[in-house]
């Protein structure tokens, strides 16, 4: 369990933002952490839709319950967060 900074690209945003998460956090928790400074700030809220996380450029998202440690993200690596 350790803090790890990531570069968050929330779909619809204009800028990559720094987000601090924990290696134990699930992808749902990563999405929620990234949303704090993007959704409702620069990206419209989309109630009822699930946010998913994927490696930049990947077609498929990570499993929602996978942890940061499990998927092997490294410090400041970029993840894409999008509404499913």
């Amino acid at each position, binding site marked *: 369990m350790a803090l790890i900074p990531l570069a968050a690209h929330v779909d619809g945003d204009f800028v990559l933002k720094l987000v601090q998460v924990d290696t134990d956090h699930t992808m749902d928790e990563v999405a929620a952490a990234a949303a704090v*400074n993007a959704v409702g*700030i620069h990206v419209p809220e989309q109630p009822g839709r699930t946010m998913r996380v994927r490696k930049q450029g990947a077609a498929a998202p990570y499993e929602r319950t996978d942890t940061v440690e499990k998927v092997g993200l490294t410090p400041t690596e970029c993840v894409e967060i999008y509404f499913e």
Partner: protein
Amino acid sequence: MALLERSQWYDIARSTEWTPRYVTQDELFPPELSGGEGLPDDIWASYDEPYKISYREYVDIQRQKDAGAYSVKAALERSDLYNKADPGWISILKEHYAAVALVEYGASFQESRFIRWSKAPGMRNMATFGMLDEIRHGQIQLFFPHEYVNKDRQFEWSHAAMWSDNWVALGARHFFDDVMMTRDALSTSIFANFSFETGFTNLQFIGLSGDAANAGDFTFSKLIQSIQSDEARHAQLGTPLLQMLIENGQKEEAQKKIDIAFWRSYRLFTILSGIPMDYYVPLEVREASFKEFMEEWIVTQFMRSLEDLGLSKPWYWDIFIRDISEHHHGQQLGTYSWRPTLWWDPAAGVSPEERDWLEEKYPGWNDTFGKVWDVMIDNFVHGRTEKTVPGTLPVICNVSQLPIVGTPSQTLRDISLVHEGRRYHFASEVDKWIFEDDPERYRHHKNLVDRFLGGDIQPADLGGALEYMGLGRVGPGGDDAHGFAWLDSYRKQLATTG
């Protein structure tokens, strides 16, 4: 005493040179400071400066220029421009002076290094005048904003910004240190004089001059015209050296120096020129869009000067052409969103009328960048002010030192690499190419986010970052230039539609 005509003595004086007997040529002109490796020793005497002037003539002309600029300032001091001008225009002055004045002083050291280290006697002679030019530019651009300090303390940044770790200052210093302060004399004259000054000072000093006059700021208009008349002269210092490189089989090296400097200059000027031209200049007095200025001064004129030398467009030309329609819009969103981190008060520039103008100049703006503004405007008009400034930092490019931005849902993406165990982020493929070409030059620098993550900034939050950047300590930070008055029309729309 009768004086000789310049033409009767100039060539003898400029070609006077000495042959070192007690030291070697390389000890007198160390390659790492002088440059020009691989060029024949006898080539330097052939440097033919594009302009010729004597010290007596120089002093007389400069005295007249100063008299012109200072007399306009004195005549208009009572016109109370500060209170009459649009606040967006005042913000341009704050941004400009703080970003430029001390850099000009640094440029006098750049020219001083030519005077000592250039192997071409003609260049050493002309760089002496370039050095005096830059001292004048530093002094005059500190003196003029000083008039406003007692009206608005943000003008204190004119002198303070470049000594601070404000993120814009970090970006500007990183750029100017790279192109102006840390390369050999020959390379510097191509990076700074040919690429930066020839292309981009035109953009800032001529482009903004027209807007200044239209905005009623004849003092600033006259000032920057006066400065540009010097820039246009000493910017030519690098051209004969470029010709030497090309004629001696080093065309590829010459092209690369230009390609690096051109991109780095362009990206910095998206902040210094792009944002002000398209968002701060009052709509009714805008001469042209940033893109139109870029097309006139850079795409057409600067590229013509490259072609005249037999050089090519930079390899990333297609990327550049796309970029001039989008990058500065992202930077405007970023600077406005993180407005407390600025030393000036940014204008939003997105009233309904201004959005129409943006859409006309940049078709598709409303469906991309405009959608982000829609969310911000919705927060403002509903009083959700806590949602109008992000609580984290943007990811910052390790070359340009600017936030990594892009067109929403189209071009925003991270470009990164891991070098010796450290991940570096880049705002474009070009920035990455610049880094990879010379990683030793760039890899040690820590951008603002690196410092934040490395524990240099405490407390590790936005407040700590503001303190680190000097906001509220060196001088006041930024807020909306117009006191959010531009939102009134949106509030009326909301009241009408419910």
